[in-house]
């Protein structure tokens, strides 16, 4: 197998973009109509995924130490789709047919045998990994929703009970499928450290126009079924480290960090932990109540909530709770110069430093940066892509070594 010839061949074909994947799937389904049902109706994302996967496989074809783990994961991932050994040759045949079709005159017997050899290797590694995985875990887990809490019109916390133990590390996530959107899998992080009763919490934010999240947030009830794939993800706690810990969560990016926080809380001697929890507006801080309780219970934990799109003024709820409006001119008397903290709003442990009930204002990354120094900390960052990017930039600027920052974005994982 000539790696360079393979790369050149793929580069020529890949220039033709989406048409290549379109031809591949049509060819596969014309030859094997029964495979069509394993895919969703809309295939554009599927085609993107195929081209990306092919691209990375071909790019690493002469770098087996990198390629093999990638393929092993790919093989394990495909178990939940119901892909089995007998499907692999069909895929290989359609792949070669597609490449031949788009290669035109540059196709030759040598190129064809390169591709056959490469595909044979890919299929072998994927299948072996899938087989090995099947010894220890099922292809998927069935789960039942046992609690639904709608925290805002577009944010819900779901509790799911898997039908058999689903071991995972805090910070990891699973792909989820709901019965009304078959073959649409979306990744969600477990928001708790593993519990004795096996239940798992998911923080779901509705993505406008997405197929899955609106069903999870607005159309899911107790007793509903879900399917889950095997846990994945590397945003996990570095247990070797003795350093203090900085957790930075944007919106539902809180989920994996909360799981890690629970894991830390189980240690006999937890390090000091700062948790920054940011959202655009105050009502986006959907889990602050629970975090405040934890902060009250654990002296080593400090929780700093932050909002980016609301000015320092007061939201409706604050006005209701804190008596006369701050904007009103002081009357002759002295009684409302200092309304005092409204009951129940300023829980201990939540940062008292930032104006009204401890909520900081500004971009989360700036709020984090102003409260440094962080150079002695391990940082864990999760949230929307831009927020994660800015935070990592700021932390690097403040002297946190890049290898002490673990992160995850859910930009395209959740829809």
């Amino acid at each position, binding site marked *: 197998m000539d790696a360079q010839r393979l790369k050149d061949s793929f580069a020529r074909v890949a220039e033709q973009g989406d048409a290549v994947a379109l031809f591949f799937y049509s060819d596969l389904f014309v030859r094997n109509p029964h495979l069509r049902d394993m895919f969703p109706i809309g295939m554009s994302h599927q085609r993107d995924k195929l081209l990306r996967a092919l691209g990375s496989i071909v790019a690493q074809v002469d770098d087996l130490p990198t390629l093999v783990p990638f393929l092993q994961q790919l093989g394990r991932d495909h178990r939940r789709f119901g892909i089995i050994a007998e499907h692999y040759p069909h895929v290989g045949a359609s792949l070669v047919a597609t490449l031949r079709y788009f290669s035109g005159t540059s196709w030759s017997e040598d190129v064809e045998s390169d591709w056959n050899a490469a595909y044979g290797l890919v299929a072998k590694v994927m299948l072996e990994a899938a087989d090995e995985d099947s010894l220890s875990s099922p292809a998927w887990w069935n789960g039942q929703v046992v609690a639904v809490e709608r925290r805002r019109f577009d944010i819900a916390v779901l509790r799911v009970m898997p039908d058999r133990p689903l071991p995972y590390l805090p910070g990891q996530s699973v792909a989820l499928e709901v019965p009304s959107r078959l073959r649409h899998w979306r990744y969600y992080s477990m928001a708790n450290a593993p519990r004795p009763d096996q239940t798992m919490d998911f923080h779901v934010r509705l993505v406008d126009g997405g197929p899955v999240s609106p069903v999870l947030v607005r159309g899911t009830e107790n007793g509903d079924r879900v399917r889950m794939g095997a846990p994945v993800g590397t945003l996990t706690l570095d247990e070797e480290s003795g350093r203090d810990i900085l957790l930075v969560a944007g919106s539902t990016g809180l989920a994996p960090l909360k799981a890690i926080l629970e894991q830390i809380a189980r240690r006999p001697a937890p390090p000091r932990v700062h948790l920054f929890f940011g959202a655009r507006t105050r009502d986006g801080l959907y889990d602050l109540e629970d975090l405040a309780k934890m902060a009250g219970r654990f002296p080593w934990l400090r929780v700093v909530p932050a909002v980016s799109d609301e000015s320092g003024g007061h939201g409706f709820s604050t006005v209701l709770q804190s008596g006369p*409006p701050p904007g009103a001119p002081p009357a002759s*008397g002295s009684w409302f110069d200092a309304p005092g903290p409204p009951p129940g709003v300023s829980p201990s442990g939540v940062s008292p430093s930032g104006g009204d009930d401890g909520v900081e204002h500004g971009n989360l990354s700036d709020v984090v940066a102003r409260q440094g120094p962080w150079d002695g900390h391990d940082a864990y960052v999760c949230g929307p892509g831009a927020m994660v990017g800015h935070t990592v930039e700021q932390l690097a600027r403040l002297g946190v070594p890049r290898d002490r920052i673990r992160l995850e974005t859910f930009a395209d994982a959740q829809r």
Partner: protein
Amino acid sequence: MNSPNLPVVSEGARLTPGELHSVVFARAALGRRGYDEEQVRNFLAYVERELVQIFNDQAVLADEVNRLRAQAAKGTRGVMAPEDAHFQAVRILSQAQQTADLYVADAERYTRELAHEARLQREAILSDAKGRAEQMLEDAHRKAVAVAEAAVRHAGQQSPPPGAARAGGMPDGAGGMPDDERLALQREVAYLRTYSDVYRSHLRSYLEALLRNVAEWEASEQSSLPR
């Protein structure tokens, strides 16, 4: 009188070599040599018709052969090679898939736009509500201040004896306070009473309006949410 072996000429049937071979003409009438002329003439007419039919058929067949040969030479229409049929099927399926993808993308975009508008409306409603709430509080504050000032003026005019009926229903323990302090407390009590009165009534009417909105919203959502 026909010989039993003379072929019966029927429409559609074709003269066969076997029939021709077995034709037997009757002898001519007495005094004449040979076959019965009538029968021979009839038979020749029959053979002629058959030949015409055969030539016609042959011409039609030759045309058909030429047409098919021409088609085969052009090679596109008619029966397709299996490979071409496969590509044709792949093309048709690809077009169908693209149509489906387009519909899905359109539906997604439409949902996104609707949701975006709903969010804008939600924000407008919220900021409106905040504005109203602030107005409410300000109104309550203004009225309460006015009432408090009035109460103080009233108390000042009356200069009531210590421990007697007090404007704000002060607790008895306040009896021994100096006058200015008592006045301040009376003013505060009057202020707070009026403030909470005005505030409560505003809040009540506002919450009732909100509840009506929520009920309408729920009703419209239940009729539109697919399950």
